[in-house]
Structures are given as C-alpha cells and as structure tokens.
C-alpha cells in the first residue's frame, strides 16, 4: 500500500491534494482539524489487520472465511421460525442488484421517481394480498412491525395494555417487549395445549376496558392456523379493543387474510416474498390497515402516495401525511422513522408482480400438500408425534420426539452428520412441549428430500431402540 493511491481514495494523489489545499488556503490537511482539541486527538495506532488493498487478495481472504459456512443449498434444511428458504426468482435479484436501486437513498421524488413508484407499487401489491387499503414502506422486521402495530392500537384506543398470544416467536417477543416498554403492558394469553390456538377462555378472563389490542399470529409460531380469528376479533371489539394479527404473507394465496376475520391492523414479514435468508438479514416488516384517517395518522413509517402532476396523464409520487413522522416533528412525531428495509420492499413487489394471483394460489397449495405429506411421513415413525397440535397447519409444525427417548439435540446432531439441518429445538423456550422441534416445509422441499429426512430419523430412532 505504501506510496500507492488506494482505488477508493481518488484525491490522495499528491498533486491533487496539494492544489486543493492551496484552494482552501492551507499547507497541510491536518490544519482542517484545528477545532479538535489536542487532548481529544487519538495518538495511538488502531490495531487492525494489515490491509488487502489489491482486490484479488481481498476476495481470497473474504471468500476463505465465508467458505466455512455450510449453506441450506448444500444441505437439506428444515429450519423456519421467522425466516425460511423459499424460491427467489432470478428477476428479484436482478432488480435489487441494480446500481440505481442499490445505491439510491433519500432523494426527492424528482430525482428518485423510480424508487417512489416501486415502493408505492410494493404497498399496492401487498394491499391486494392482505386485502387492505393502506400498507407502509417496510419496517426493520416483523418484530418491529408487530410492536408498532400495538403502539398504533394503543394510540388509537387511548389504552395501554395489550394482550399477546404466548405462541409468538421468543425472538420476536423479545424485540416487541423492548419496543413497547415502558408505555405498554404486555399481558400473555395462553394457547390451548391441544389445538395450539388461542385459549378463548383465558382471553375472555383477561380482556377489559384497559385492553388496547389483542395480538395473535396466523399461523402461530408453533404452526397451527388459528381458525377462530373472527371470534377473537369479536371479543376484542366488544371490549373496545382492536384485533391485531401477524400473518405469513406466503400463505395468503390460499388462506383468508386477517382482514376477512375482523382484523384491524395486520403485520408480518416479507422475507418469504423473493428475498434470500441472509442469516436473518433478509427480514423486513409490513403493517396494513383500512384507509381511515385515525389509522393512517398513527403510522410512524413512510407512506408513499400517488398523485397527478401538472402534465395531463402523468403519475407522480410523494410522502403521504409527512407531518406525522419524526423527520418532521422529532420527538412529537409518531415513534420514529429512519433507514429500515426499503430494498427488500422493492424486491417483494417484484415477487408479487411475477407471482400474480394464481402463482400465490399455487404456492400455498404446494406448500400445504408437501407439509401435510411430511407430517404424515414423520408421524409414522415410532415414538414421533407430528404434528403435535390438532389443527390445520400451513408450512410449519411441531414434531414431538419425547417418546423416542432421544433429545432434539441428539437427533439434530445425527441429522447434521447426514447433511440435514433438523427442525429448530423448542425444548428450551417451550419446555412444556418436551423434546419437540419446529419443522418448516416450503415449495423448495421435494418429496425425495422429505423421504430422506424420514429415513434418517427412522434410522436414528431405531439405533436408540437397540
């Protein structure tokens, strides 16, 4: 590196630097730091590795580290629980890798018309999938979307207690708890140990005139489709509370969207809509509602709207009700808005445009067929209960291995040796389920792969029996 100009640093060319200093009227760049007191200057050396400024060296180095990862393409993965391997159409990556979208940020609608239109279209496509009239520019993830939905409900109702199903992902619940504290009190509502759905008696005993919202997920983290959403909404509405539902949008080609069973605020994650997993970095959240001012004005997020321009027939786009945001009002705005996950929103829009109504229907159907096949295959294994809950399921289900005498940990270790990532171990976060794991089946799992799993589990169990 010594004496060479780094490719990222054009004005380190000595002559250029000198002439720029002359323009400014200084003899050395360090003079520009005159306002930084000597006692605040860092005198030491940052202990960083020797740099690799030549690109081939950098590639070798970074790729050698990444090569230590074992991927869900090289193995058969049954992991879900808030992030799943769905198919990513080639065009989704083609678009989100475009320099224009990848490197744009916060330009005005005139310089960044395409960014505004693409995100408006994302909102519009999601709105059709959810059957609602308003959807926001994405939040960080489902967890933030759920927390914001609850905060919106609290502001709309003027109440501060929210009832939240206890069959919510522990990871997500952790984010929600931090985000809602201290203004909101989160009261857990039990799920039925038989069906996995919300325990309506428990709900009825906890709901009151203090309740701002009832929150459940569909399907729940444990897999069951909640079929009593209309009943839950009725209980909530009678108490003057809102029904807030977290949903897997991948399911909505075949399963009724929450707005059809009384949901007032719907939220969830778009990672399954054309976005890779990225070790969890592919998550991005949505919030959707009716187009009523009392709802719209409580969103913290950007909402891009369509408009006409001064030229007949021309579409323009811009921020709807910008004055509600923290950009406009700082601490007086609704929660906060900043850099969230816009590029994933554009990507999910591309995905939905490709899939169309029939693609989403076909997708839901294939996933349900394959997951039912997997549940049937696994339930044939000695000592295995699949699914654990007596309910319809979409793509995820709990497999109970307790009666095999094996722990999930032992089972997954065995599977890993066969190139299989077994379902996520629930024994720590849901001890009442015994040795259970959360399995996820998507359109990416062929019958053969499901059979490989069943055979491997069978082998593991019969070894134990000997």
């Amino acid at each position, binding site marked *: 590196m010594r004496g060479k100009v780094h490719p990222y640093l054009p004005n380190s060319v000595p002559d250029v630097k000198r002439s720029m200093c002359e323009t400014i009227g200084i003899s050395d760049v360090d003079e520009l730091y005159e306002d930084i007191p000597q006692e605040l200057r860092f005198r030491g050396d940052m202990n960083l590795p020797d740099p690799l400024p030549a690109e081939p060296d950098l590639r070798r180095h970074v790729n050698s580290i990444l090569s230590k990862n074992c991927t869900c393409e090289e193995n058969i993965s049954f992991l879900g629980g808030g992030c799943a391997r769905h198919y990513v159409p080639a065009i989704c990556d083609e678009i989100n890798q475009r320099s224009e979208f990848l490197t744009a940020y916060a330009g005005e609608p005139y310089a960044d018309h395409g*960014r505004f239109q693409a995100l408006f279209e994302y909102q519009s496509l999601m709105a059709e999938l959810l059957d609602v009239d308003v959807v926001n520019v994405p939040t960080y993830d489902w967890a933030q979307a759920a927390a914001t939905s609850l905060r919106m409900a609290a502001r709309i109702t003027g109440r501060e207690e929210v009832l939240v199903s206890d069959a919510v992902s522990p990871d997500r619940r952790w984010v929600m708890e931090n*985000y809602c504290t201290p203004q909101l009190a989160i009261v857990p509502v039990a799920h039925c140990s038989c069906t996995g759905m919300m325990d309506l008696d428990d709900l009825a005993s906890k709901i009151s005139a203090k309740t701002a919202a009832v929150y459940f997920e569909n399907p729940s983290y444990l897999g069951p489709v909640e079929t009593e959403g209309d009943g839950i909404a009725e209980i909530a509405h009678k108490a003057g509370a809102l029904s807030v539902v977290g949903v897997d949008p991948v399911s909505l080609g075949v*399963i*009724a969207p929450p707005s059809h069973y009384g949901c007032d605020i719907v939220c969830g994650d778009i990672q399954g809509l054309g976005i890779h997993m990225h070790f969890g970095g592919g998550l991005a959240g949505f919030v959707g509602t009716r187009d009523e001012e009392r709802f719209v004005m409580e969103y913290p997020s950007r909402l891009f709207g369509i408009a006409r321009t001064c030229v007949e027939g*021309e579409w323009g786009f811009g921020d709807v009700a910008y004055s509600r945001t923290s950009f406009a009002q700082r601490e007086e705005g609704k929660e906060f808005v900043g850099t969230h996950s816009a*590029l994933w929103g554009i990507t999910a829009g591309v995905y939905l445009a490709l899939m169309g109504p029939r693609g989403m229907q076909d997708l839901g159907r294939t996933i349900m067929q394959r997951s039912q096949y997997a549940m049937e295959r696994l339930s044939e294994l000695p000592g295995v209960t699949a699914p654990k809950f007596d309910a319809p399921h979409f793509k995820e289900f709990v497999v109970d291995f307790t009666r095999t005498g094996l722990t999930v940990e032992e089972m997954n270790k065995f599977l890993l040796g066969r190139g299989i990532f077994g379902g996520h171990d629930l024994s720590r976060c849901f001890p009442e389920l015994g040795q259970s794991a959360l399995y996820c089946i998507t359109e990416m799992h062929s019958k053969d792969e499901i059979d490989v799993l069943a055979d491997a589990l069978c082998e593991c169990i019969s070894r134990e029996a000997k």
Partner: protein
Amino acid sequence: MAKVRNFHQARWEEPVIFELSQPGERGILVPEAEKAIEERVGDGVSVLPEKMIRREPPALPEISQMRVLKHYLRLSQATLGADFNVDVGQGTCTMKYSPKVNEEFARSPKSVCIHPLQDEQTVQGALEIIHSLDLFLREISGLDRFSLQPGGGSAAALAMASIIRAFHEQSGEGDQRDEIITTIFSHPSDAAVAAVKGFKVVTIHQNEEGLPDIDQLRKSVSERTAGLIITNPEDTGIFNSQIARFTEIVHSVGGLCGYDQANANGLLGITRASEAGFDMCYFNLHKTFSSPHGCGGPACGALGATEELAAFLPVPVVERDVNGDYYLNYDLPNTIGKIRSFHGVFPAILRAYAWIMSLGAEGLRECARLAVLNNNYVLAKVSQIRGATAPYAEGRHRIEQVRYSWEELYHDTGVTTEDIARRMSDYGFHLWQSHHPFIVPQPFTIEPTESYSRDELDEYVAGLARVAREAYDSPDLVKSAPHRSVVHRINEDWFDEPGKWAVTWRAYLKKHGAPGSGGRQ
C-alpha cells in the same frame, strides 16, 4: 469552470404496474407437489375450515416475465443512485462509494443461503465476520464491545435509549431519571427514540457559533437527567471542541452519554468516542463503512459500549472460545433483550468488514482526511456562489459536511431551496433540503465524502452555480422545474388530504376512479 451536463433523466412514462395486467399471463411458475403426494394428501387446502379458505385469489396483476423485468428496469432508470451521480448533495447521508467486490461477497451463496438458527458449527464464517468487525470497531471507537444487531442508525439509537433506561432502573433511579438531552442539530431520531422509551426530551439549541449552547446544557442537567444523545459534528459540520465538557457535565449529575456517530466519516483514526468521554456510540455501516443505502435499508447501526455497559447490550453477541470456535452468547446479565430479530443485517456487516480490510488503519485515516479536505474544498467554492452562504463559524474549517443557506438568494429572487433542489435534478444531481426544523433558513447540506475526485466536485459546484445564476436571471425557470427529469411538478395536495391521498392503487381507484379520459391510456 467545469462543464455542466446537458442531462435528461430517463422518461419512460411507465404505467403503474396494475395497468400492465393481462388476465392469464404468468410471470413465474411454482413447483407442483409430486403426484404421489397429491394422491396421498389431496389438494392440501381442504384441511382448512371453509371460512379460512381464500376462494377469491388476491387481485394481483397478471404479467409475463419479460414485461415485469422491463417495468422494474425502467423504474430503476428513473432513480438516481449514487453509482450514477456526484452524490454529495444528500449531506448527513455519507453517500460514498460502495465497492462492487463487496457486492460479490454479499451475493455469495455462502452468505445468502444461511439460516439464522443453523447450528453454530455450520456458520463459523458468518460468526467470524461479526466477531472480527466487533474487534475492528472497538479500535476505531476506543469502546469495549459492539452489538451489530440494530438494523439502522435509529435502531441503534433506540438501543442506546433502552440501555440508558435499563441502567438507571438497575441502580434504582429509573423513575427519577426521566429526561434525555439532545441537540437541535442532532438527528431527529435521537430525540424520537428517547420519547419511544418514555423519556421527556430536552433539546439544546445552538449558540451564535452554531454549536450547542453549553450554558443551556448546564442549566438543563439535574437529578432527572438520564442521559445525553448527541451528534458531533452536528449537521453544520462544525466540530464541538467542548464535547468532553458536555460528557463531564452530564456524568457529573449521574447521566450516561451516547455518541451518535452514524456519520463518523471525517473522524476515523483522528478522534474517538472514548477520548471524548462517551459511554456508548453507534456507527452506521451504511454510511461511514460503505454498505450501500438500498433506497433506505436494509442497514446496520453498530452499537458500542464501555465495559461497564457491555452487559446491557442486545443478545446474542458473538464470542470466541479457547479452541478458536465462535459461538453465540446470550448470557449478558443486564441485556435489554433484542432490537432486531436474529443477528441483524449480515450483508451490511460483511460489506463493512471487507471495506475496512481493504483500507486498513492508515487507509481509514486517509479516508477521513480526504472527506474533510473535499468538504473544505467545496466550502471554498460554494462560498463564491452568489446567494449561497455558510452560516456560523465564519472563516473556520468544517469537518465532513456543511449546512449552507440560500437565504440571500431567496431574498434576492424568491427562489427557495426546494426550487433549487428540483432544478438540480435537471442536471443529474441531488440536492437535499436538510432535516426539519429549518433553523438555518433555506438550508441545503453538502457532504462530499472521500469518494469523489476533484473534477467531480468541481462539476457539482458548477451545477450549483449554474442553478443559482438561473435563479437570478430567470427565476421562473427554476421555480417551474424540473424540466428534464422523469416527471413534472407533482400536485402535492394529494398527499395531505385524507379524501385524496392514495397509499395504494386500490385506494386510488376508490377515491379517483379508473384512470379513464383524464388518465394515461
């Protein structure tokens, strides 16, 4: 004088995607379940009770594949990414070069196809990157431990406010310490997240030099002070040389100090959070550390803390055991829990790691010095433009950005900073009006970063000078801009009236009817 381009933005008059629908067309097909599966389980959907089955499919458009591609490619052309322009006009956003080799890493199957719940032994590469970047950022900040979980700067600020709350609750002063102090030129989110965490926000305004008023700070602190969240330099680009006094004053009453270093581009290797007495800081990896902005995320706000506060960070953090294996540690005794699901935005973390590895310690320092050199070079040039001024700190140098004002130009011509911004897009440039409130009248903020060559900076300044001259010579041309952008002046009434606004296409159709004679056909 550098040449100003006779630019014209792509104008495809591209319809809204729903207008492209042709019933029956398909963009992509989905694998069908194998025949043996179908025979065994049937259609799969019938297990649902009737009321839960969606009989009417969602009203998505039906479009063949190439047409979807073309539509989005045209929209991309109607977007002015940093790769295309001299993107110095979005000051505070640090629109630097995002190296393409880092995109290769971020797109590698070894990076995109890993699940966050995989066995630790199968993601050693990812954990190594996260752990190594934590170590790098410790060197850059002087702090002791980083969490890379927050999904953006605001998320990191939220984590900071959460830690401030948890810290005081733990010491039994949670109820008493209910105020967070910030400054008017710090990012709006620094104030907003404090309110989200239930704090009363105390905002320090600037003094005549444009710096936060230290006397006001002295009067504001008390036994109610929970903490300070402050940027430095603030949006003005003036370094607050009394910053260590600020942290002392807040510490003296028992408050904690958080440094918003979202944009630390002018300070890498020059001065650090630790020397200024901060307990926490955060860096935006999508600003200072080159991860691309992606139209507004996904991103990462890397949150650092001192040893004393490290136990409050979000979990898990990545550790290395005695065998050299990396693992996830959930066991932080005072953790605030989680700020984002799973482990944050890995692609942003990976790109920042690679960027630092390319530059090294000396490269980072040179990057900062050039960002400051470029900024002061632009300052010298913009100061010569009629109608433009750089309020505060006259004759002094700035760090990485300057908040300028068109007040004089507005006074002379009636042309506003919004007008100028629109006209700049006619020349292929961004110009951003700056954060609210407009303390500096008719503001604009320029941050040149290290990425642009002198010639490019000259070109941008020439663009500004051209538009300023137009404002004097033919103000209507500027006021009626844009003329060579994708679209013309937008009717903004549609955005604030509930009866008119349409956040989705279906809402548009309900409120305004199908785009018939008045619409594009």
